[in-house]
């Protein structure tokens, strides 16, 4: 009943690749973080889909953990961005390249 797991996986893949594209193209760290969230969500969708397919709850557990970790990571990332903004530096990942060479 309803679409096969394959369709869900296709959507998950598309989300993941879109998120990856966003990470690679955008220069503002905020947008990069948002794209990162999209990637994580794509992964979550895949997990839930498989969990349903194999009729085991472990995939859901994994997805919940991923959510918790994503939240933590966003906290730290946003904290960094705010700190950078406070230092009056340009919010541009290309310019934040002190580790060059």
């Amino acid at each position, binding site marked *: 009943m309803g679409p096969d797991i394959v369709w869900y996986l296709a959507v998950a893949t598309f989300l993941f690749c879109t998120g990856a594209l966003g*990470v*690679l193209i955008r220069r503002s760290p905020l947008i990069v973080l948002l794209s990162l969230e999209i990637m994580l969500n794509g992964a979550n969708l895949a997990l839930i889909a498989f969990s349903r397919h194999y009729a085991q709850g472990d995939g859901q557990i994994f997805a919940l953990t991923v959510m918790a970790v994503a939240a933590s990571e966003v906290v730290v990332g946003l904290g960094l961005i705010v700190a950078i903004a406070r230092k009056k530096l340009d919010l541009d*990942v*290309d310019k934040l*390249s*002190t580790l*060059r060479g």
Partner: protein
Amino acid sequence: MIPAAWTCLLSPLAAALLITLAGTRISRRGAAYLATASVFVSFVAAVVSFAGLLGDSPKQRYHASTLWSWLTAGQLDFGLRIVVDPLSIFMMLVVSGVGMLIVAYSIGYMEGDDEERRYFAYMALFVFSMLLLVQAGNLLILLVGWGLVGLSSYLLIGFWHERPAAIAAAKKAFVMNAIGDATMALALFMLIQRTGSLNFEDVFAQTDQLGGSWAVNLIALGLLGGAVAKSAQLPLHTWLPDAMEGPTPVSALIHAATMVTAGVYLIVRTAPLFEQAPRVLELAAGLGAITLVMAGLIALVQTDIKRVIAYSTMSQIGYMFMAVGLGAFANGEFHLLTHAFFKALLFMAAGLVIHALAGEQDIRKMGGLRRLMPFTFVAFVVGTLSLTGIPPFSGFFSKDSILAAALDHGWYGQLLWIAGMAGTFLTGLYASRLFFIVFWGEPSPFVREHLMASSHAHAREGHASHNGHETHEHAGEGPFSMTATVGLLTVLAAIGGFLQFAEVWTPVSDWLAQVAPPLVEATGVQEAISSVLAVLLGLAGLGIGWSIYGARTSEAPRVAWLQTLLERKFYFDELYDAAFYRPSVWVAHALGRWIERPLVFGSVRELSEGLRELGLGTGRLQTGLVRTYALAIAASLAVVTVVFVAVR
């Protein structure tokens, strides 16, 4: 008898070790006395062994003793083995006896030197090495002793190591001896392969199987190579004159009486092997003959007192080689004995002269020492007459028997006989030249300065005993240790020859007959002719020397090209330099330029530069941009996925 033999061998080693370990805790005199005492103990032990051996009947005079099994490999077993038989006892007595006198002489000669202890340790080491060589019960231990005497020689020639000439001479001696060591080692390898053992009895029992084949000739040739190097015969002779850089007692002991005679001993000891290779024996005799004439000629133009005596040694060993090459083994050994006496005597007397003249060795500065050093004068007279072979001194008895034996060997022997006769004439000539230049006439200015300068510088009669330090300017011929030993040797050189006389009285030949039966026998007539002719030639040489250098009634002929040829020692040094030294240096430089620098250095440098480039290049990947890194991750992920899927 066996314990005595071991004592004889190990006593000097113990002294050497003690002196070395004691370092500065032992006084310099103490080291000197310890070394001398150890060699004296050695001599006593040798006499005891001799007495023991006398008690055995001639057929039974062969005792071997193995301390432990030194080297075992599969079926080969070499032990630390000594042998007590007539030949080894003979050599032991010579080495320890003459050695004892010379080490005692060194007490006076080396007094005041800063490194006296080292000197006496080395001397004790040398005596031990030489005894090991002559007492060895198998060829391996003999080779060990061989190498050790080479080492001791190197250490003692270069004793005064601040002098570059001494260091160079020591190296030259060692390298040339090493060539001989190498040929000997090769011969031993072949021997092991053929006979499976190096013990004398085993090897000699199998010699008739080997007889005449190319193998035994090669073995004999290898052994001859070692003998030639050690005894300073042509072509490996150039090291001996340079070896005079060492102290005079060293020259006396090592380069006259004992080490250089080791080659002769080797041939006598391995006589059964050499008998199977008669061509090699003839080669040995030939080399001896050529050396004896060549060295005699060179000695005519030498101006250093020690070098004259050194070339004389080379010449006399040529006689010994001639003897053993012809198969007259006992005669060769007898000449070894008498030569040890008079050559050591000559060196030590020369040492007295050098000591009195504060280290001067150039004979052109000397003259007229006859009245100033009468004791030395007498010693030199005895030595010179002995050397020339004038009866009743010792050289006469031993040398003539060699020359007579040459006549028994066919046309080749007769050729050698002529060479030997020429050598006798030359011996008379150079010996008298040396003697008259140094001792005759009026004292030269140099001598006047050194021996007649101070007020109480009157020549005193020989055996006055001088204790303690004696400076050179004060007259008197030297400390007691030096004069006493020279006196003893004078006596021995004078009467030592009476040990054997032609066919009439032959204890030496009988003694050694068991070990090395002679291959030639001269008839009575041949002996008589030889002897008379030799004495006449010797006297002729002495006479001519007297007229040129003593009475100054005639002038020495001056042939320019001959003079240069002799002074340059027949250009052997230059020949070896061009043939061996220059090419080796050229090869070394070429290798350095073409192989070592580009390949070895180059590869290392290329490697390091390559790594540096790699590091720099990799550094450029660090752009510092997050997006680049992320792109790299994404791209690699894409690739990895493909690979992963494809592999599945």
